[in-house]
């Protein structure tokens, strides 16, 4: 038991001998929760997750003896928790529309009973190790929750309960380790959020994450187990891109961490996801989704914790052998929370007021992504996607530039594209993906052997058109040769027919890899056909007048994922039109001679 010495915003200094760094404490009469972030002699510096108003020096402080830990077990999915994993729905029941302080609420509901089935072949007498599957709980109709032996625990199984309904606190199994000590295993376990959960081996990521967004999947792919970032100034559509990923990714579990962002955005997800169908399982999207919410008006310190809570939950599902995607919106707010605490502690600021450890903390966070062989020998992955909100849209600021150094896929959003309502406003010049080579193997095997070549050609066309557009802006289109004008048209087809994608249009919102490829091939085909006609003397004006150019741009929303045969049939028509033109002109040329 100790006492408060000083209150300075969210930073409280307490006299609490013997407390450890990282330990949870409760301070004041209201018993606000906080975490020790430093020691100075007998005194400890505590960052408090709740507003510290009305706290006064002299009030008591109490150490809780454990670090900030996540409760991991059945009941996580479909819910919304705050930055320190307190379920917001239960806070709502207890304290009404506004979040009260000092609440004591467990992360997982203790009352719900879950149908637990022991894993086949798990019998008393057997030796179990950390990470082994003890049994399963069908948490939602589409999701089987695997109850694991916690990492670090091993021994001989003394007993295990029969199949039946149990609460999370029920002891379902007992193990005796080599020293004879008995460990009681429950349906849930705790894990300190700042420590990565262990795995057997790190594997290379090999399979692309399919998000159904053409510019992401086809042009700048991300792998399952990879690290990606979405930087963009406000109004560039960051949130929309993140939400689309959360909606359509082919992952087993999606974690959406709203870190210092708008409350209404989370409400949007909470209200819309239950209505949406997961394209892979046909079930409600909410059944595989979990939200961690620390909105911008919630206390800043919990914001710092929220992404660690999120990634720990992600790792827990990975350890069960699942593919998990975690979207963090936005890592800039997390960095700002670091900065605020550092500032209050009087630490020396380096760039733009950020502490010197910003880069290493960012890198360490992203390092928790990966595809691994789990302790039980299965395969699981955590894919991390962080939004970055650079001040003034300046990508050279510290958070964006440090993030750029650690991620492999960088989806840079552009204000100029967003202003012209070109969505998603992913800029093809500034974005990159270090995974294109690996992704190509998958695409070429599963979808189309021409993927790599088509992608490169399209990107080259866009770059070329960018240069030509500069000339047009200076001297007008008249200065260009017919071939160059056709390049501009080809790039236009790719931009409008492939890259632009409407999240609000039910047909266009999600594209299967097959449709993505079909659209890209179609646009390139039109470009090639036209280029060939130009060579045989057809004037470029004649080509630009073709109504099929307008129709091609609408194909993305005219043909659904199931209508690829119709789309291909239309492609045949296009070919026939070009053949016809070629015929006409060769006749004319013949007649002229």
């Amino acid at each position, binding site marked *: 038991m100790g006492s408060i010495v*000083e*209150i*300075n*915003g969210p930073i409280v200094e307490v006299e609490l001998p013997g407390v450890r760094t990282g330990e949870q404490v409760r301070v004041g009469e209201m018993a606000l929760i906080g975490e020790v972030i430093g020691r100075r002699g007998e005194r400890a510096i505590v960052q408090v997750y709740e507003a510290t*108003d*009305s*706290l*006064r*020096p*002299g009030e008591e402080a109490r150490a809780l003896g454990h670090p900030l830990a996540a409760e991991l077990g059945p009941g996580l999915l479909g819910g919304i928790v705050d930055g320190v994993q307190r379920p*917001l729905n239960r806070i709502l029941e207890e*304290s*009404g*529309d*506004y979040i009260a302080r000092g609440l004591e609420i467990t992360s997982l509901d203790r009352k719900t009973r879950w149908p637990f089935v022991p894993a086949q072949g798990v019998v008393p007498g057997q030796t179990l190790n950390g990470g082994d599957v003890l049994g399963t709980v069908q948490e939602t109709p589409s999701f089987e929750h695997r109850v694991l032996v916690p990492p670090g625990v091993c021994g001989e199984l003394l007993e295990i309960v029969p199949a039946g309904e149990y609460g999370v606190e029920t002891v379902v199994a007992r193990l005796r380790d080599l020293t004879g000590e008995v460990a009681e295993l429950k349906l849930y376990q705790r894990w300190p959020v700042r420590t990565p959960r262990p795995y057997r081996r790190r594997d290379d990521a090999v399979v692309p994450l399919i998000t159904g967004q053409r510019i992401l999947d086809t042009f700048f792919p991300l792998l399952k187990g990879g690290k990606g970032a979405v930087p963009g100034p406000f*109004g560039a559509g960051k949130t929309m891109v993140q939400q689309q990923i959360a909606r359509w990714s082919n992952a087993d579990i999606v974690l959406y961490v*709203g870190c*210092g962002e708008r*409350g*209404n955005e989370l*409400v949007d997800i909470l209200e819309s996801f239950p209505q949406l169908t997961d394209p892979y399982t046909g079930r409600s999207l909410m059944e595989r989704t979990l939200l961690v*919410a620390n909105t*911008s*008006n919630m*206390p*800043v310190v919990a914001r710092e914790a929220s992404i660690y809570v999120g990634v720990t939950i992600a790792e827990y599902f990975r350890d069960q052998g699942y593919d998990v995607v975690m979207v963090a919106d936005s890592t800039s*707010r997390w960095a700002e929370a670091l*900065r605020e605490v*550092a*500032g209050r502690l009087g630490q020396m600021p380096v760039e*733009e*007021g950020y502490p010197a450890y910003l880069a290493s903390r960012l890198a360490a966070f992203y390092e928790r992504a990966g595809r691994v062989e789990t302790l039980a020998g299965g395969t699981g992955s955590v894919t991390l996607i962080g939004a970055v*909100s650079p*001040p*003034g849209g*300046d990508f050279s600021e510290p958070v964006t530039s440090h993030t750029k150094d650690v991620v492999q896929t960088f989806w840079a959003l552009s204000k100029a*594209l967003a*202003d*012209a*309502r*070109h969505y998603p406003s992913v800029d093809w010049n500034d974005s990159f993906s270090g995974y294109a080579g690996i992704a190509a193997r998958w695409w070429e095997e599963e979808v189309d052997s021409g993927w790599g070549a088509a992608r490169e050609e399209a990107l080259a066309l866009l770059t070329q058109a*960018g240069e030509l*557009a*500069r000339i047009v*802006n200076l001297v*007008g*289109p*008249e200065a*260009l040769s017919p071939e160059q004008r056709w390049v501009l*048209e080809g*790039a*236009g087809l790719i*931009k*409008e027919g492939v890259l*632009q994608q409407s999240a*609000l249009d039910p047909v266009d919102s999600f594209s299967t890899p097959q449709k993505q490829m079909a659209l890209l091939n179609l646009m390139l085909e039109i470009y090639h056909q036209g280029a060939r006609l130009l060579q045989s003397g057809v004037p470029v*004006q004649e080509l*630009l*007048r073709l109504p099929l150019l307008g129709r091609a*741009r609408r194909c993305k929303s005219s043909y659904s994922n199931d209508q690829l045969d119709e789309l291909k049939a239309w492609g045949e028509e296009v070919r026939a039109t070009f053949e016809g033109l070629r015929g006409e002109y060769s006749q004319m040329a013949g007649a002229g001679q």
Partner: protein
Amino acid sequence: MKEKEYRMGVRAQGGLLYMQGIPGVAFGDRVQVRDHRGGLRNGRVIRSAKELVLVQVFEGTDDLDLENTWVRFLEEPFRMPLSPELLGRVFSGIGQPRDERPPIVSSLSRDVNGSAVNPAARAYPKEFIQTGISTIDGLNSLVRGQKLPIFTGSGLPHNRLAAQIVRQARLLNETSGFAVVFAAMGVSYDDARFFRENFESSGVLGNVVMFINLADDPPIERLVLPRTALTVAEYLTFDLDLHVLVVLTDMTNYAEALREVATAKGDVPSRKGYPGYLYSDLAEIYERAGRIKNRHGSITMVPVVSMPSDDITHPIPDLTGYITEGQIVLSRELNNQGIYPPVTIPPSLSRLMKDGIGKDDTREDHPRVASQLYASYARALEVRNLASIIGAEELSGLDKKFLAFAEGFEKQFVNQGEDEDRSIIETLSIAWDLLSLLPYDVLTRVSEADLAKYHHRERGAVEHDLDDAETRPETVTHA
């Protein structure tokens, strides 16, 4: 302790009063400071330690004689008394009457800092508000519970626009109780009077609560003013079930006051000297807008943010844009051409528009028309750029049409009278007049059915004067 007065000030500087040797003062509590002339000032504890208590004095620390300054700790946070009597009144930032009428007496009072709304309790805003202003209704629709700032510059008519929104804002097919909370921070006397007269002449004054801090009033009071105002707004909304429109002007003055105090406290500065917590601090204010499930009222917020040197990347508009649900941006260029309201379309945005418009709310073609106007205007601006280099005569037939579209768009769609209250149907009809200047083929964002129904020319009559090469892509060129 409440009865005791302390005279232990050791330093007074930049609005901060340092006190020593006072035990157990609660963080955030309200303080009363009596100066040597007996004048009372208000303050708040912003740091509390056994050795040192730091008090922020809202009226400033000028002319404080430490030997004769007496401080009383009131043992409660800053609270605002709340009653229906508030309507029609004028207050200072700390809730004291400014209209020579008696103070509000009520048994109900609330902490002005409020607490965070549980995201799980929020309801998603989706009811279209018709402001009668085409650039807002047509392209950046406002919905109930949204926070939509006006980004402006010095000398631009943001006040007139804000006043027009207050006068004209209404929900289609509904009449229900509404109120306006007007929070002015560091505004000139003339501006304050302009708003007052405006409310008076439009007959809404009885539904308005005004909080005024003039340019020559103490700047630190600006830090508490929006919080007091929003506490009142929350009371009107959630206790009296009113729909409340909150106008905050000017948030830049607020942020500057914050910087002033942060500097005096010695906080680590981040960009342009603003403290690192500017984002969180602004969010505490802006996020108090919204709707709550199972409650009737709503708080819609229109903050006015002036962009220093018209720079939208300045920390104040920049951080605001990250928190609010869109922005209406005013442009000096349009203003100089005599266009009112000078809303510049490309950077303006309403994030909540998508759920408030369309078939059941406005008209089925509205979302596509908005997208088409944005895209066509973006292209038209490019053409205009080009015309300024190679001359308008050199443009292709289609480009000339785009040029005409841009002209018409600015003069007829953007431009409107200060008293002109356009219905959404009128706005959409002007939009189609303008889109009809362009041929079918370039209108790829509207559907075939829209074209058939609203485009003025029939498909067959589409002119084939696409005679010369077009740089068809409407997307921006990447320079």
